[in-house]
């Protein structure tokens, strides 16, 4: 492959796989602004599918972690996520509290395992 194409390839992939499949829904919304409402069955179903995909991504990022997170044991990653989630539920459903507690458990546990 010629070098210019090599440099541009990741951006081409970004447009084909990231931009277009996502933007098509905004464009459709713009074109078909009337007709469908939030209660229509196809919208309800698609929102459930979208939620499940997002849940899948969350599980993937925690269970099959990448980079430096992969060096922290699985049990600690899952445990920290559980602690953060319980804290989130307990303290007024605050995302900030959930993330702060999850991170604190993960980092503290990581330190404890290292020493």
């Amino acid at each position: 492959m010629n070098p210019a194409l090599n440099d541009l390839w990741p951006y081409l992939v970004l447009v084909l796989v990231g931009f277009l499949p996502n933007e098509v829904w905004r464009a459709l919304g713009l074109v078909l602004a009337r007709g469908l409402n939030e209660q229509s069955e196809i919208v309800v179903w698609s929102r459930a599918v979208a939620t499940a995909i997002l849940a899948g991504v969350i599980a993937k990022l925690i269970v099959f972690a990448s980079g430096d997170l992969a060096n922290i044991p699985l049990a600690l990653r899952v445990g920290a996520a559980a602690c953060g989630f319980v804290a989130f539920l307990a303290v007024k459903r605050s995302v900030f509290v959930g993330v702060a507690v999850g991170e604190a458990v993960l980092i503290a546990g990581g330190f404890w395992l290292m020493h």
Partner: protein
Amino acid sequence: MSTTAARHYQSSSAAFVGGVKAAFSTVFVLVMTGTFIGIGALAHGYGFSASWLTVSTVVVWAGPAQIILIAALGSGGSMIEAAIAVTLSGVRLFPMVVSVLPLLRGKGTRTVDLLLPSHFMAVTTWMESLRLLPHLPRDERIPFCNGMGSGYMATSVVAGLVGFYLAASLPPLFAGGLLFITPMAFLCMTTRGARALLQRLALVLGLAIEPILMHFHVGLDLMWTGVGAGSFAYLVHRIREASR
């Protein structure tokens, strides 16, 4: 819906600046900063460049889609699988655009003027648009919306780069901690957004099914998780509705 203005801007550029200020005056800007620090770290972890990260933030402009894209491509998944997962996660943008356009569209509004506000529609800008736009006169809503979107986007680009370079320079344990922000924040935010049983069931099933599919190396795992868990939850919801 009221057309009387609670606050009136002198010009459309003043409305734009008002939108930027609105973006920086809520707690969302903090959530967004944390999320995009996480996404930046994720992009670094999966070997993407800082400029690719920045371009992807601007053109995708949907946190979940961007994370799916990075995780799917970065873990060696096929382009088709990544595109399917991204488009399935993008479906939710459709009802958002549909529900916000009536607020933006006036008598003389050209469709081309609605392109940018439509692109800015993502969870945060959508929620804030529904909350703030009705208080503005109609001709100021589009510039206000563009200003708000620009404010959030600029924040996200900068936070993404901060996360990217932090991940490159922090000790491994803390860099690992950065990568943990995204799943932790999205777990909480998705739960908060899932008020109905249908959404909660889809969330729980998705969390459970994905690791099983990954464990058995099932291809297109995200797509099957989404369609399987989402449809099952939808089915339970329909049966429950019918038996009422």
